[in-house]
């Protein structure tokens, strides 16, 4: 089997392992990627993450629901834990030095969506500072300043706790207008994001990372 053929086969196996919620297969295939000397970042992005994109589509089509989503995420992490230490810094591009503070706002203890977005940031090579759930609003500001993160990602599952996001956006922008703020969660829309003065909107797990990379690129353009 040629190297390209082998690569394609293993990428498909990694993607299938995620879609099929098969942690063992994700681990075994990831180990094979390393044993064969293939590129770990390629395997993460075009194998594991590609599988998660299919999972997102299955969720949208009501073929998968939240329990399936969580088990797919477990399979992805099983592979990611093996592959991540072998990523070459030059493969990462814009996200290499990207840091993100993430959390669910005060009054909200729903963190499944936040954890999926966190996983996608990790997949893309960001350093993630996870504040968890039910996070007091000022804690986001403190953590951003402590870590000098490029992005603050806020999640709210309920319309009523979403209002807390507006205060966080104001507090962070007052201290440091260069920080990009991304909002996500069931009640959040593009209109809300604009209204609250945030910079990006995570419509889905896949879109969150693309949006984050775009935000970082824009910020770095401005800072040049």
């Amino acid at each position, binding site marked *: 089997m040629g190297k390209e053929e082998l690569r394609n086969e293993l990428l498909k196996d990694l993607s299938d392992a995620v879609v099929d*919620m098969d942690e063992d297969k994700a681990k075994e295939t990831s180990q094979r990627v390393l044993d064969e000397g293939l590129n770990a970042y390629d395997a993460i992005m075009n194998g594991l993450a590609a599988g998660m994109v299919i999972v997102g589509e299955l969720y949208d089509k*009501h073929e998968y*629901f*939240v*329990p*399936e989503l*969580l*088990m797919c995420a*477990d399979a992805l992490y099983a592979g990611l834990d093996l592959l991540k230490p072998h990523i070459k810094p030059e493969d990462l591009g814009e996200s290499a030095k990207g840091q993100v503070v993430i959390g669910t706002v*005060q*009054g*909200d*203890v*729903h963190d*499944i969506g936040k*954890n999926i977005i966190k996983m996608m940031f990790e997949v893309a090579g960001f350093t993630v500072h996870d504040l968890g759930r*039910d996070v007091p609003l000022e804690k986001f500001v403190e953590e951003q300043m402590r870590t000098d993160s490029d992005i603050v990602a806020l999640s709210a599952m309920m*319309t*009523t*706790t979403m*209002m807390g996001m507006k*205060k966080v956006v104001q507090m962070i922008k007052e201290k440091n207008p260069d920080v990009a703020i991304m909002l996500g969660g*069931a009640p959040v829309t593009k209109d809300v994001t604009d209204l609250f003065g945030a910079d990006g909107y995570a419509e889905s797990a896949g879109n969150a990372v693309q949006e984050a990379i775009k935000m970082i690129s824009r910020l770095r353009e401005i800072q040049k």
Partner: protein
Amino acid sequence: MDAMTSKERVEKLFKKEPIDVMPVFSGQGMVTIQAIEKMGIRFAQIHTSAEYMARSAMTTAEIFGFDAVIVPYDMCTVPEALGRGASLYENADGILYPTVPSKWKTLDEVELDSEFMSKGRMPVVDDAIRILKSSSDGKFAVGSWVLGPFTMAGQLLELDVLLKGLKKEKEKVEGFLSTMTDLVIEVAKHYQGLGVDYMNIREMGSGTDIISPRMWKMLVLDNLQKVFSALRSPKILHICGSTDMIIEMMNDCGADALSVDQKNNVGESRRKLGDDVLLLGNFDPYGTMAKMDASEVESVIKKCIDDGVDAVWPGCDLWPELKKENVDAYVRTVREYGKKASPAVGRI
């Protein structure tokens, strides 16, 4: 003929007997900032005081002309009594509902205290119901609610552990849900024993945004059937989020009425269920009462009635910080537009 009292109106609605006009009430919390301010207290103070809980419900009903009062307001009373704690946000700006800070992290940690009914704030809710029963003097219907078994499980056990467990540890999770079913029955029967006029079971975490219809049938349906067969009427099943795919199974649970939120296509549900089923819903409480311009409220309420509800219920708790003029428009529209018979309930 004299108009019916609020309590009569609600009671007859659940019996599907003719009433004078559609009642304005809910199976979820209906406390408002207008009542809280009138009482000179803060939202966070209500949760630990039976007197405040009961008075804020009564004051809200009096300000707006509701037909019922309902307690409790938060979803943490049972988890707190079982040792999971409750964050009351006493120092937070604005209104935050209590949350459960320390859920069980594995199924092996689960241990139920058989004395939980006397722990935490459970006695506060009991006293609030007693005060409402004695002080409303038959003027208002007194309602209460308990989370359904699946949702209660998610309030006590980390949600990802529960949801993954549905696939990974199916038997264990089924056992846990069965225990939750007994727990829900115990609490709901206790409130019925205190004399509440209607009981709402809120299985709000089981919509198809979260689990599949297949899983709902396997893990939610039977337990709800057990709950409803143990309770006396009137008893309501409320589920928020996506319910279009499970509305017919909801109707097989044995409740007297079904309540859904704004995600349900009520016109379609009515067609599926027929005119004899009591259907309640389904406006977005935050969007309609807190955000929208008051002039737009009437059309939202009329649409609920035109779609075929028998009473216009908010899809969840009323968010306390609402606009008075919006609630006034809600009540006014129900009183005027709700004079005509609804699909399951005639008019005198």
